[in-house]
């Protein structure tokens, strides 16, 4: 596990990645978000490159979750623009974000607690379904074929995340770490181009964190999914991500590769509270 956690080290014998990092897929330009008089985000600009793992870090209340909520259309910023593949995204809503290939997981898990793991992940496929409500209710051939295809896709995800043994278990009976994994599975079922992960490692023990790291790296490597993640655990962020954005009080105070960000005095100050 140790060695594999540093899959993105630039050592010469590190394996090359499945999908080389490409051009910008997501560009944020001068984004500001206010709730009444409270400035959640102020003039934030950064981009996300295709196939990279991009982390957003910052102390509590720095605006990280707001940032994610702006990207997938939960909040609409008062100022600034967001471009996907160079195309301006106006009137963004969570539903629309999902349709254009942006999936997400939540800080405090948002699964259907009474449903099984299988059904939860199947729910993630629903956006790709073309059969109408009536067709599904009447079990027309098209609806049934679609269901079969989706089930196969979901089974691949179940195998990928190694959760075969809980396939038919209601989610509420699972420990926290596994619920997080199921949520990742549901996000993957939508076959996203960009995966937004809100604190995927929060509340996990070391072993669960290692597993989750492995899965995030694998998702990125096998499917070429671009990953944007918020994380508190600095060690995890440094090992996992290609580039890091640092926020503090709604402002961007750092941006770059992990090593560069780690040694930035501004970042150290925000994190460790160095006395002036």
């Amino acid at each position: 596990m140790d060695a594999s956690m540093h899959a993105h080290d630039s050592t010469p014998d590190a394996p090359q990645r499945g999908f080389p990092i490409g051009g910008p897929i997501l560009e944020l330009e001068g984004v500001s978000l206010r709730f009444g008089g409270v400035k959640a985000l102020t003039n934030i600009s950064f981009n996300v490159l295709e196939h990279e793992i991009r982390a957003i870090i910052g102390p509590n209340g720095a605006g990280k979750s707001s940032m994610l909520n702006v990207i997938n259309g939960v909040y609409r910023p008062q100022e600034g623009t967001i471009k996907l593949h160079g195309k301006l995204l106006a009137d963004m809503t969570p539903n629309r974000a999902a349709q254009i290939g942006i999936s997400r997981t939540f800080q405090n898990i948002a699964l259907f607690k009474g449903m099984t793991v299988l059904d939860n992940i199947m729910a993630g496929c629903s956006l790709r379904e073309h059969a109408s409500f009536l067709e599904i209710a009447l079990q027309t051939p098209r609806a049934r074929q679609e269901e079969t295809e989706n089930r196969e896709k979901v089974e691949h995800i179940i195998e990928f995340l190694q959760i075969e043994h809980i396939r038919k278990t209601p989610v509420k009976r699972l420990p926290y770490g596994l619920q997080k994994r199921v949520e990742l599975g549901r996000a993957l079922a939508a076959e996203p181009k960009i995966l937004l992960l809100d604190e995927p490692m929060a509340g996990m023990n070391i072993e669960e964190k290692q597993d989750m790291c492995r899965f995030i790296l694998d998702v990125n490597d096998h499917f070429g999914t671009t990953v944007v993640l918020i994380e508190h655990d600095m060690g995890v962020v440094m090992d996992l991500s290609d580039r890091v954005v640092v926020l503090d009080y709604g402002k961007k105070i750092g941006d770059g590769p992990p090593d560069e960000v780690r040694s930035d005095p501004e970042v150290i100050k925000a994190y460790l509270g160095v006395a002036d």
Partner: protein
Amino acid sequence: MSTLPKFLLLNQQKNPGSPAIREKKLGIWHTLNWGQLADEVRVVAAALLLEGIQRGDRIGLLGENRPRLFSAMAAVQWVGGVVVPLFTDTNAQEIISPIQSAGIAFVFAENQEQVDKLLSLMPQCPSLRRVVYDDELGMRHYGQSQLLSYEALMAKGRTGLVEVGAQLDSELECGSGKDPAALFFTSGTTGPARGVLHTHEALISRVQSAIKSEGLSSSDTSLAYLPPAWLAQHVFAYVIPMVSGSCVCCPESSETMLSDMREMGPTLFLAPPRVLEALLTQISIRINNTGGIKRSIYDACMAVAKRVGAGVLSGKQVSTVDRITFRLSDAIIYSPLRDVLGLSRVRKAYCAGESIGADLLLFYRSLGIDLKQVYGSAEMGLFATLQATDPGLSGSVGRPAPGLELSLSPAGEVLFRAPDPFSGYYQDTDSTRIRTDAEGWFYTGDMGWLDQQGELHLVGRKQDIGSLKNGGLFAPKFLENKLKFSIYINEVIVLGKDCDAVCALVDIDSEAVGNWADKQGLSYTGFTDLVALDDVYRLIGEVITETNAELANDPNLAHAQVHRFVLLPKRLEPDDGEVTRMRKVRREVIAQRFTSLVQALYDDSAVVQFDAPVRYENGSTGQISATVMIGSARVFAAPTLHKAA
């Protein structure tokens, strides 16, 4: 028929359409019939010839039970190679010695994890030149020239099939029963693992006699869920299906084994005692967590089972009232229970690997499951003895299999002699000399006795058995099995050889004890914290006291009551060498690792400081440190012996 690949082709001719291997993949069971299997094996065998494999080459297998593992085995044997199944849950260091001593050049590995292991030990194993991997997940960036995917190997075989077709036929033809078929490494309970070669004939003839005496047929189904490196599992999941033409099922993963078993409903079931213990613990925990009415129905029915169940199964005379109550209990409890356990279609269940406690055997037999103890070892093969149709509760393991001779040394050690005598440990003549004599007898290291019917009864390992200081017999396995029947005890090591009194090191079952603690409203943070609770000590103390009361009733056993005990502050782990990969206790290692605890048991200390290094699964090491209490159990006075007439 002399070799296993010849049996494969016979099955292909006779029943090409009947199922050979079933595998659950992506949630669906897929079937490979004998025709398809034989075709695949032929292709792989062709590829092996093209890879330069020659007769007698040893080929390693590092994977779980998957159809491709079985095809690879048959293909290796087709071209005259010897299969060497290795344990998959080992760290890399542990497989160096088998690879070196067997001179393995070619390995079939299951996935990235196993490939990583092999790549890491290549510098120490220069003989290793080819690794074929099955699962391609994560393998995309591996550029090493030694690596080849199973798919690529198959493609190579398919293109070369015409080229080497004639050679394939002649290789199959010239295979003889005297050829070595498989090399197994002993479980290493009493020392480093040693290799034992088995010929086709030895494996086949033993299975043929078992098929005959046990009535196994091509309509049987079994589940392959134990490590393939274990001889008993190899015989069960590979040799028996090949020879009888029956079907073997591969579960999706080890975690899904129970539900997969329920789906497939195997008719043959093989389990080491620890699996049977774990199943019983699971049942007990779930029953304990249900409501009062359900629990009392369960308890009442189990009491009936205990009283008459084994008798009914053995066809003994049982009163009409008992028979009716038993039928009724069967309908409401035993039958649903067998169904939940996936055992409802089981015709024959076997327990192998270690001797099973009488209580545990009785539990399963009284549920109507025909569970028998079979005796064997890596040296003797499985089914060294076979039981008559009714094993009863005598605790015997039966009579020697046809062709095998059984004898006892003057000291009571069990000796075996086979027509083709034990060929010796692989490249280890010293160990061979210790275990065999000039007349070809193999010294099993097990102590036993023969009853009037000539059936063998086992007492335990020779080096474990001894006497207390006061002269009373000390046979730890018997005591341990009695104690382990409690769901709260996972493993226990009883000490007392040449000592004043019997004491015990107890490894608690964290799940059952944890569940109990939850119900008592006890709080704890983890395993080490749980075992240090006074209440847990009291709980285990009560279990031991109950056993002591039972022992005290038997004048021959009263001296063996357990006086003092400790709860081990860490689980027994194969990575720490305390148990083998088959989870069998290594007494010497344990005595040495827990010296401070053993000392404290025999001086009068109440607490003792325990420190020990531990090894994690990924190979890193750490340190465990705990203050351990010494518990004591109530000891009962022995009943006065009846005066001999």
